């Protein structure tokens, strides 16, 4: 059953070929069998089986939605009522959320089955899932390689078929990069499309939740459940949610694809360039027109991002003070000692590095030179995208510079780790939607193709991704031992 698409699973459940309880047991068994991947922080077996029983009743009474009864796993950044919500940190190792994130409420309302909470980089800060308090997650394509991050557990749960689909969040590439490195489909929606309420904040002007699935067709169904205006999130955008599955089969004749020359420079890895050229060629065969475009300010995306994101992080993470929830140090002598030691003990090294960086960038005397400057560059990058997207329908490019790197390989040098986000972070600065879809293998490790669209054109992006997945089968490949 675990090899079926979401549409097939939904059909099988409604048809009575199998029950949600049977399907849920199958995934729970697989999770136990593959614990060594370290994809899950918490497995919520009891909740899953109760959700499944409820779903079977709902399906029998013909009131099922497309995702009713299908098992999902949630990134451990989404607050789940009375279930441990750790955000990959020792700071929240004892945190049982007192409410549900809006995204979780939406999955509950549709009758989804929650298998558990997925491993991630601590507070979503990392590109390899190695900064988690709960240890590194292993890539099922090669267990000595990283799965990417920060939604590493989410990507592995789907790639290794330990959940039918999962959720992730993307601040600088945290859905798309692990999706690419694990050979799955990951969509980062337009900023404001999916509610951030109850999604633990890292950098509030960049964070966005989205689906991680086997295919664009699956992603359309999941986004349908996740998207929508939420009065509880003041940056949620009040626009109607279109039917994301309706235009999946729209032909691509005349589609204008832009390839930014800054993405395809001589710096691009030669194998990666070759694989992407093959994918673009596939689009040409599907009737698309290919055009070179230029976005000169893209090269400044990394420095601008690594000012803005840490600045917002340092402000957001000030709430972890050892007073109201989370870790508290033993025997504090005074209030400053309580704050300083609780935070010092509760946060890991990368989180501390970003809090320090952000605090510095926002401090008197440096605010203009770093924070304001970065926000100005953010405007220029965003304008580059806006202008380019008047010339072409979508922009395509790599997701990552290389396939998955080795566990431990980049942990000693933060700058080298940050550079692995070079193709994804500009999209967050602009707030645009983008998807990563499997586009082949380099030395038996999967790589992704990135498709970037205009604001709120998720349906178009999904259509373009789906058409590619009708003529290729990269998205159907399964790592050895997980078929």
């Amino acid at each position, binding site marked *: 059953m675990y090899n079926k698409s979401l549409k097939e699973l939904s059909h099988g459940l409604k048809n009575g070929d199998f029950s949600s309880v049977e399907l849920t047991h199958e995934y729970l068994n697989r999770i136990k069998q593959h614990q060594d991947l370290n994809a899950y922080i918490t497995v919520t077996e009891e909740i899953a089986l109760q959700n499944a029983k409820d779903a079977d009743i709902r399906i029998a009474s013909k009131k099922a939605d497309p995702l009713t009864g299908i098992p999902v796993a949630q990134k451990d950044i989404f607050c789940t009522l009375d279930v441990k919500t750790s955000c990959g940190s020792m700071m929240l190792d004892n945190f049982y959320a007192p409410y549900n994130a809006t995204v979780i409420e939406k999955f509950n309302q549709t009758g989804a089955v929650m298998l558990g909470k997925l491993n991630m980089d601590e507070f979503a800060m990392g590109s390899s899932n190695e900064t988690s308090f709960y240890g590194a997650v292993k890539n099922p394509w090669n267990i000595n390689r990283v799965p990417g991050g920060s939604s590493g557990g989410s990507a592995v749960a789907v790639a290794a078929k330990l959940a039918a689909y999962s959720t992730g969040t993307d601040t600088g590439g945290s859905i798309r990069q692990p999706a690419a490195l694990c050979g799955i489909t990951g969509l980062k929606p337009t900023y404001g499309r999916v509610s951030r309420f109850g999604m633990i904040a890292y950098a509030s002007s960049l964070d966005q939740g989205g689906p991680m699935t086997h295919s664009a067709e699956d992603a359309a169904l999941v986004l349908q459940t996740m998207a929508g205006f939420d*009065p509880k999130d003041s940056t949620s955008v009040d626009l109607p949610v279109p039917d994301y599955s309706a235009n999946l089969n729209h032909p691509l004749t005349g589609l204008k694809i832009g390839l930014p020359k800054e993405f395809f420079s001589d710096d691009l890895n030669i194998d990666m360039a070759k694989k992407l050229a093959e994918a673009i060629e596939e689009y040409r065969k599907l009737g698309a027109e290919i055009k070179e475009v230029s976005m000169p300010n893209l090269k400044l995306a990394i420095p601008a991002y690594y000012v803005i994101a840490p600045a917002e992080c340092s402000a957001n993470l000030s709430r972890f003070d050892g007073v109201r929830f989370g870790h508290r140090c033993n025997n504090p002598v005074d209030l400053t000692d309580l704050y300083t030691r609780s935070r010092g003990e509760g946060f890991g090294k990368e989180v501390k590095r970003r809090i320090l960086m952000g605090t510095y960038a926002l401090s008197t005397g440096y605010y203009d030179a*770093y924070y304001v400057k970065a926000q100005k560059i953010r405007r220029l990058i965003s304008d580059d995208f806006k202008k380019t997207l008047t010339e072409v329908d979508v922009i395509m490019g790599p997701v990552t510079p290389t396939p998955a790197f080795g566990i431990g390989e980049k942990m000693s040098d933060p700058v080298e780790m*940050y550079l692995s986000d070079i193709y994804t972070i500009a999209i967050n600065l602009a707030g645009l939607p983008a998807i990563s879809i499997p586009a082949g293998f380099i030395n038996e490790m999967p790589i992704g193709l990135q498709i970037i669209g205009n604001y709120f054109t998720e349906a178009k992006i999904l259509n373009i991704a789906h058409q590619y997945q009708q003529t290729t089968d990269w998205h159907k490949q399964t790592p050895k031992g997980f078929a």
Partner: protein
Amino acid sequence: MSLTTNDVNKIAHLARLGIDSQDTESYAKDLSGILDLMTQMSELNTDKVEPMAHPMDQAQRLRHDNITEKNNRDKFMSIAPQTEDGLFLVPKVIE
């Protein structure tokens, strides 16, 4: 631009963030490396550019001042490190 261990200690104090003294050196080195990356930004003249704080340039949405949540005081207190009589406890602040 490079930071000294003294700078790191000052920033850590501003952030109320405890860091191990044996790690101060490595933070100074890491942060200096990150700041080197940032200096690329100064290559670009941005004098006439308006800073961008939000992807949609959206203003904060306002709502009517109505009570929309029920009182969850007990629930929130139950996950706090230390409470007494419905209050969060911290070390004595005023003598």
